[in-house]
């Protein structure tokens, strides 16, 4: 979700449902046409020779359209990467056995806890050292360590952060998602990382959920599953982190003990689609679906993922890169580099060394 989309979403609230639905329906054909084109191009012989999969084509076509002819703002209401990826993830539950999910989930949660705690503190330290103020440093640290856009919004809410600073962090998260989603699988393949380790590394490092799924899909189906589970483990922590940050600010920084945040914050910010994913995985593990039903679900899920990948491209404006720079960007890059190395070591230990 880009900063533009955030503004668009907020404008959306005030708009009548009928108008929003019309905009959505008008924008949908663009998405469908680009998705079909991406899948068609990926099946041509030269794409197969060069390994240009539908994921890459989808992101690339979206990028080309957004940065050349552009799309009218109201039609962008159909470009909901987060929504499509969440629907796809609920359906992906049917492909992952509940037992595997528990193993990946527990390891993913251990990794997520270690990554969030360590990277948050390091990112905060770097930001402070580079001269950013306390609130900005907290929002930036949450964006790098937890889950990009959602975490940055949650942290900004908890510390009552500045809207401009939040928008800037969101711009950095969105702008860096595309290069990372393409480069990480290339690096992983160059050093022959096992798919589970690559998935855990991708899931723990890339900030936005759609980009994690795209990058995992580029590495392969096993990496995609692990990356998705690890990312969802991290998403679950957003509420906890937002609650702890809010408590810290209310009690320590602003010293207003009467404004104690409610633990219900954890539930409010809990990613509800994870519940859908878990239920579908459980139903599939109880063998309630036939082979042909699972095959249809898998195809529908791939289409929703393709829609989301096209939306990643459509949501990335090269103009956003021009805005980046200065101390916040340096802090973000340094913290993200630390995140890449630290998560790599953890992913290797948890998903390769420990059985």
């Amino acid at each position, binding site marked *: 979700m880009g900063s533009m989309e*955030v503004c668009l*979403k*907020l404008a*959306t*609230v005030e708009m009548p449902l009928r108008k929003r639905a019309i905009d959505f329906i008008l924008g949908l054909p663009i998405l469908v046409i680009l998705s079909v084109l991406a*899948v068609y191009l990926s099946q041509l012989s030269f794409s197969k020779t060069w390994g240009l999969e*539908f994921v890459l084509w989808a992101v690339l076509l979206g990028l080309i359209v957004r940065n050349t002819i552009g799309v009218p703002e109201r039609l962008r209401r159909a470009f*909901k990467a*987060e*929504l499509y990826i*969440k*629907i796809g*993830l*609920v*359906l992906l539950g*049917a492909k992952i056995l509940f037992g595997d999910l528990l193993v990946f989930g527990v390891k993913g949660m251990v990794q997520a806890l270690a990554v969030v705690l360590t990277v948050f503190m390091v990112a905060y330290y770097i930001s402070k050292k580079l001269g950013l103020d306390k609130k900005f440093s907290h929002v930036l640290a949450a964006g790098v360590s937890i889950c990009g856009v*959602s975490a940055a*919004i*949650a942290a*900004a*809410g908890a510390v*009552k952060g500045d*809207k401009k600073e*939040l928008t800037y962090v969101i711009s950095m998260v969105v702008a860096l998602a595309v290069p990372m989603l393409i480069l990480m699988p290339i690096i992983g393949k160059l050093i022959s990382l096992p798919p589970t380790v690559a998935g855990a590394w991708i899931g723990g490092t890339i900030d936005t959920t759609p980009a994690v799924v795209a990058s995992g899909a580029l590495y392969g189906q096993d990496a995609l599953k692990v990356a998705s589970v690890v990312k969802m483990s991290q998403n679950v922590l957003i509420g906890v982190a937002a609650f702890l940050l809010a408590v810290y600010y209310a009690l320590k920084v602003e010293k207003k003990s009467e404004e104690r945040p409610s633990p219900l914050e954890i539930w*409010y*910010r809990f*990613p*509800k*689609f994870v*519940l*859908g994913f878990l239920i*579908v995985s459980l139903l599939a593990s109880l063998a309630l*679906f036939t082979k042909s*039903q699972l095959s*249809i*679900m*898998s*195809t*529908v899920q*791939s*289409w929703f993922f393709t829609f989301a990948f096209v939306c990643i491209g459509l949501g990335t404006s090269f103009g956003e890169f021009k805005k980046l720079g200065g101390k916040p960007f340096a802090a973000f890059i340094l913290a993200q580099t630390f995140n890449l190395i630290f998560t790599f070591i953890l992913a290797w230990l948890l998903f390769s060394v420990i059985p």
Partner: protein
Amino acid sequence: MVYLRRSLRLKISEDWLSVAIGFIIIALIVIGAITWVPWRFV
């Protein structure tokens, strides 16, 4: 703060919407209303 509260409200509704759409699709597949989807992804 209104800005942040609205983003949170939108995020929550989008989360539940994704679960609802996912379950409706699965229900349609299980009852046999969807029996074919174009293109097989490899």
